[in-house]
């Protein structure tokens, strides 16, 4: 490190960049033609999305008999995937809102991509309840609107109705938050672009932003307020999702630990997904200076903490069941761990409890290949967590004569695959057409961990006025 730099903090952005260089690096990605890799990835995602769409159309036209559900297991695949995708989305809001309130400046390199991931993940999630309605064109019946049937209103006491409000609010607020953050960057692209289509589009969507500081003052306040509103919102969303289960009287669901347990699990899986995407993006788009080992390390630590919370929750559930005095409750947990779905349970435990514990070691956190594999393992584990909670609690109910098993049909599997197709298609489009790194925010943290005094001194000692001040790093 150059002389005169602060030893107290490590710089967040490597390479002693100046603001101009940040614009060049990030906008440069958009200026270049897409690589062959991008086309291959995009077409593959599009193909999977197409197959998923076909499966969805088929099941909507034929009816929900195309699923593997039965009288006992009336809820399985759709709700598993719904909770899985909503959980993925939560990391984006955690990074953009909660880390903002805690003044974690390293978030600036990740927040744009993480918020995009949130919005796309919520879209993927929303598909499942829509399909599950059987007649998705009547989805608006779930909203309270004046109608000719009385008017007959929705049941506001039902967590499923809470869910509709929570998910829609979450989607809208996330999209607004993301867009507000994008406006200054869109203006940067607009002012760099040559006259043409892109300049026109960016001019339209950048709302006439010109960097006026009077606007910046208001903008910063609104950004802070949105963060302050989104923070309890993200907690409320997964709390309400967990109440879909917890307010029922099914053993294994009816517990008060669900809200914190679900929120921790959501952050856990979401962070793993963001980290996975960022590790790919970093390599493919050469963002090593922006998304550094410091970022990987910080995100691994959050995965470790939330993973441990999830592990503790699994243990607590068992203790609660053992102590409850309810044979039904005790049976559900024994059946979960040693019954017909024990394989799913133990996949869940090994992926979610054991594998993240490896992140205690610095050697593991600094090995990108290892971290990448761990993020995938965590996501597999978190998918199985939802599957285990839902199916293993239902399939052996109070009446042994109605016990049944559940296996997903090919249609259900293709629908799940289709949402991954949608997710990656939209994410690849985002990487292609919008700045993946929040330029306006990264420029503000360039001086972080770099000595201010040294820089001013060098600048003033330098030649006549009108010459760009030289930063200490360049001198070295």
């Amino acid at each position, binding site marked *: 490190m150059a002389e005169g730099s602060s030893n107290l903090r490590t710089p967040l952005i490597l390479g002693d960049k100046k603001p101009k260089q940040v614009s060049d690096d990030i906008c440069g990605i958009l200026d270049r033609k897409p690589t062959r890799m991008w086309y291959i990835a995009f077409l593959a995602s599009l193909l999977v999305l197409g197959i998923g769409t076909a499966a969805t159309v088929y099941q909507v036209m034929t009816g929900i008999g195309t699923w593997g559900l039965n009288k006992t297991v009336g809820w399985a695949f759709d709700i598993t995937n719904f909770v899985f995708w909503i959980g993925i989305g939560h990391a984006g809001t955690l990074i953009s809102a909660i880390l903002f309130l805690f003044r974690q400046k390293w978030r600036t390199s990740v927040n744009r991509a993480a918020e995009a991931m949130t919005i796309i993940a919520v879209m993927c999630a929303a598909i499942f309840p829509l399909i599950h309605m059987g007649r998705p064109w009547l989805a608006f019946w779930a909203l309270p609107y004046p109608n000719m049937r009385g008017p007959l209103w929705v049941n506001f006491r039902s967590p499923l109705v809470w869910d509709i409000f929570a998910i829609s609010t979450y989607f809208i607020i996330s999209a607004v938050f993301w867009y507000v953050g994008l406006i200054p960057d869109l203006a940067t692209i607009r002012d760099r672009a040559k006259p043409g289509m892109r300049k026109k589009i960016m001019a339209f969507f950048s709302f006439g932003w010109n960097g006026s*500081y009077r606007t910046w003052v208001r903008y910063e306040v609104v950004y802070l307020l949105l963060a302050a509103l989104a923070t309890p919102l993200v907690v409320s969303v997964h709390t309400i999702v967990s109440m879909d289960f917890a307010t029922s009287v099914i053993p294994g669901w009816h517990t008060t630990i669900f809200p914190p347990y679900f929120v921790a699990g959501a952050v856990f899986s979401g962070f793993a997904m963001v980290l996975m995407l960022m590790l790919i993006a970093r390599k493919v788009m050469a963002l090593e200076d922006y998304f550094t080992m410091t970022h990987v390390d910080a995100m691994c630590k959050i995965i470790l903490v939330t993973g441990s919370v999830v592990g503790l929750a699994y243990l607590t559930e068992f203790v609660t069941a053992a102590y409850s005095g309810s044979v039904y409750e005790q049976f559900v947990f024994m059946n979960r761990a040693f019954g017909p779905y024990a394989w799913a349970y133990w996949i869940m435990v090994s992926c979610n409890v054991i594998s993240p514990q490896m992140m205690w070691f610095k050697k593991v956190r600094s090995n990108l290949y290892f971290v990448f594999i761990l993020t995938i393992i965590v996501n597999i584990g978190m998918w199985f967590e939802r599957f285990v909670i839902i199916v293993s609690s239902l399939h052996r109910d109070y009446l042994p004569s109605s016990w049944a098993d559940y296996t997903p049909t090919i249609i259900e599997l293709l629908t799940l695959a289709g949402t991954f197709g949608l997710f990656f298609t939209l994410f690849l489009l985002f990487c292609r057409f919008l700045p993946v790194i929040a330029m306006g925010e990264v420029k503000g943290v360039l001086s972080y961990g770099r000595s201010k005094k040294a820089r001013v001194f060098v600048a003033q000692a330098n030649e006549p006025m009108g010459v760009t001040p030289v930063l200490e790093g360049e001198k070295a």
Partner: protein
Amino acid sequence: MSQRVFLSIFECEDDIMDAARAVREEGLSIVDIYAPYAVHGLEKAAGFAPSRLPWATFFLGLSGATFMLWLMFWTSAVSWPLNVGGKPWNSLPAFLPITFELMVLVAGVGSVITLFIVSGLRPGKEAIMPYPGVTDDKFALIIEETDATFDPEAVRLLCEKYNAIHTEEREEK
């Protein structure tokens, strides 16, 4: 009404910060600053008043929550009361999650719309740029030329002391 202004351009966040502070200490008034990113503390250095937007957010949130709570009470207890599991018509605890969601929704979306209105931002609006590059890496400081005592030469020297890379006088409409 046209206004004469003095424009100076800086390239470093520390320079604009010091320059803004120095200019204000000289008793000059700053019309506006243009910046590619928000610099912590610059609004204080420039003497800009804090935004009153939190009040808008507060009242928007309050009205969103009140409206939703009223709607749920009215639909469940007045318009068509339905017995759901023997729960009371007015099931206040069960109404709280949605009340909260609507508070967030109305406050969040409303604040952003308020921001757009008060700052004059709208889709397709033409951006009026004081100097090229202020959305990229340049900072522009615009000082009001108040009266005859304004000495452009002194201000120019002051700004150049803080590494201004360009200065000019302008007639602004």
